[in-house]
């Protein structure tokens, strides 16, 4: 039996504008993420990290290259198919939490199931809230939750459909170090105990150290990778990359 990567991109290219003003946000990225792996994507600001996530999620169409989710090529999918892909095979966690303000924590977590036309599975939703440590906050509205708690609700919501990949764009960007640790430990735990595949964009070497692998992007290209990262090693590599970019820019 062959196992496909949970997410795979080949020759992924995304260009904004054309002519001399064209911005090559992604310039041919080849990456594969094995099921149950936790990968951090790092790189200087503007290196194409968010663009990569957006293309993988079908929110942006790549200019060239392919995106495969669970071995299925989704590059040419129409908008309907992309929508189905998002709600069935992908989970999202963003810096800005993205909860619906008029739904309680429990209702927010169950929302993707309802959107997919399934009944909100109470036991499953409760189980996830318990997993993220918010069982006692199930009936609170987002405004009554702290930033870290809101992000934990967002993680529970991303996990509820058992997605092939959980995509996270700077999930701890708006959180303090202690709260960030809780959120990262939660992502790590979902990989270890649920076999969840996680791809996380981050600026923070400490956050990246929670991952199995770090991939470095520079100017829309993969500029290196590091297995079994530590915060110090990642920070050192980043400083080096920064130097690289400055040389390229001058």
């Amino acid at each position: 039996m062959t196992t496909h990567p949970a997410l795979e991109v080949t020759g992924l290219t995304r260009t904004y504008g054309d002519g001399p003003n064209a911005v090559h946000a992604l310039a041919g990225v080849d990456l594969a993420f094995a099921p149950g792996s936790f990968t951090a994507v790092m790189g200087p600001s503007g290196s194409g990290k968010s663009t990569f996530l957006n293309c993988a999620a079908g929110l942006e169409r790549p200019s060239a290259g392919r995106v495969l989710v669970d071995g299925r090529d989704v590059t040419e999918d129409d908008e309907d198919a992309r929508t189905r892909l998002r709600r069935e095979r992908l989970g999202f966690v963003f810096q800005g939490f993205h909860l619906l303000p008029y739904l309680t924590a429990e209702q927010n977590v169950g929302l993707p199931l309802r959107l997919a036309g399934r009944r909100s599975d109470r036991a499953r939703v409760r189980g996830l809230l318990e997993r993220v440590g918010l069982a006692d906050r199930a009936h609170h509205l987002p405004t009554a939750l702290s930033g870290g708690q809101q992000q934990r609700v967002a993680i529970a919501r991303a996990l509820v459909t058992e997605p092939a990949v959980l995509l996270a764009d700077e999930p701890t960007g708006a959180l303090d170090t202690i709260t960030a640790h809780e959120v990262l430990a939660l992502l790590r735990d979902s990989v270890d105990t649920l076999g969840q595949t996680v791809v996380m964009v981050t600026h923070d070497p400490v956050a990246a150290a929670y991952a199995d692998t770090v991939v470095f992007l520079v100017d829309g290209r993969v500029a290196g990778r590091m297995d079994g990262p530590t915060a110090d090693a990642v920070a050192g590599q980043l400083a080096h990359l920064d130097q690289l970019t400055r040389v390229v820019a001058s």
Partner: protein
Amino acid sequence: MTGLAWASLRHRVTANASTFVSVLLGAALIGAFATLAQTGAGEVSADDAETLRIMGIVVGGWGSAIVLFSVASTLGITVRQRAEEVGLLRVVGATPRQVRRLVLAEAAVVTGVAAVLGALVAWPAGFVLLALLRNGGMVSDTVEYGGGPAALAVTVVLVVLTGLLAAAVTARRTTGGPATLAIAEARSGAGRMRWWRVLIGLLLVGYGVAMAVVTITVTAHDSDPYAAMSTSGSSSILVGIGLATLSPLLLRWLSSACAPAVGRTGVVGWLAAWNTSRRPHLLGAVLAPVIVLTAGAAGVLMLVGIDHRTIGAGHPEGDTINLLNNLVTGMIVVFAAVVVVNAFAAVVAGRRAELQRLRLLGATPTQVERSVLAEAGIVAGIGVLLGLVASLATVVPFAVARDEGVVPDGQLWLPVLVAVATVALTLVAARSAVRRLGPLTGAVR
């Protein structure tokens, strides 16, 4: 501060365009009747002066009440929508006072320009109105149009002051409290209603009901058959505006009551039910004009019908009075309809980010559109129900006064027609508001 106001004006085109249209139309309506009052104050016979004064002040006065209410509620939406931005400005160090000045500057620009343009429309509109009165023989042919700068200036001042007052009240609400709290409130869109607003609403409803009682007990027995009409004719509008003032409160109660049932219809109804009941201020702004539209149209049209069946057709004053009534109704209907459409456009435009979030989570464009339509359905249903209840304040006492009994003898299809038309209008308004947003997917950064 003014530069910032300009920039933010351009940023919120839809919401500001809605305010602009409401104010312009409102100023045109009030101004047209104000020119009649001014004409009446000129060199005309005592009879003509009386007719013009009644037209200008009574009819115009009623129109003004509705128009000003609508302007206030539309401006309320725009200012409320800025709560999140206000919170941000507060966090980066703007004082509540600075923020209020920004909000007021923006409101002043929009209402000022719109009111002046509306007054320019009012001038010829008043001319046409007077010509209609002359042709209908309601004033003598010798009456010359006397509308001028005075009437128009009063109109502009009145409209702009109302707008600024509404903006100031809402701005005070959104800027008060510590900076972080401002953001939290913005996200919830909930919040309590102020006591004075509840009081005003209750007083209006109470006054309308009292007038209804007076009609049945006193004016029904008056020798002048139109005495009953003068006490009951405006009751439906009064009670309607009173209920509209209480709209966030009523929406929360009533939509919470029907939320479980609507929620069982599927994810679309489920989202709509929670949105309306947990953020009643948001859609309360749409509910208000729906109530006034239904109450005014059903109440006054039934009134005219009852009068026509009983004595109106044979009475010398009947035609004049019913022309006036129809004029008022027409005015209310057109205006309230415009406000419903505008209010929906403004509310939906302000929710773009939230609807986008739904798409991101895997809602199809159809699901998003239907959830907004379901909200519109809930609002329309509740609004029509409340509006019809309000219309009873006119219909029942007048029917009793004219010996038709509690239930009028005819035209019972009329309220049904008004209800169906209002619901249809609300749904169409919602649909066009969502469609105007364009595609909701795209990169998230």
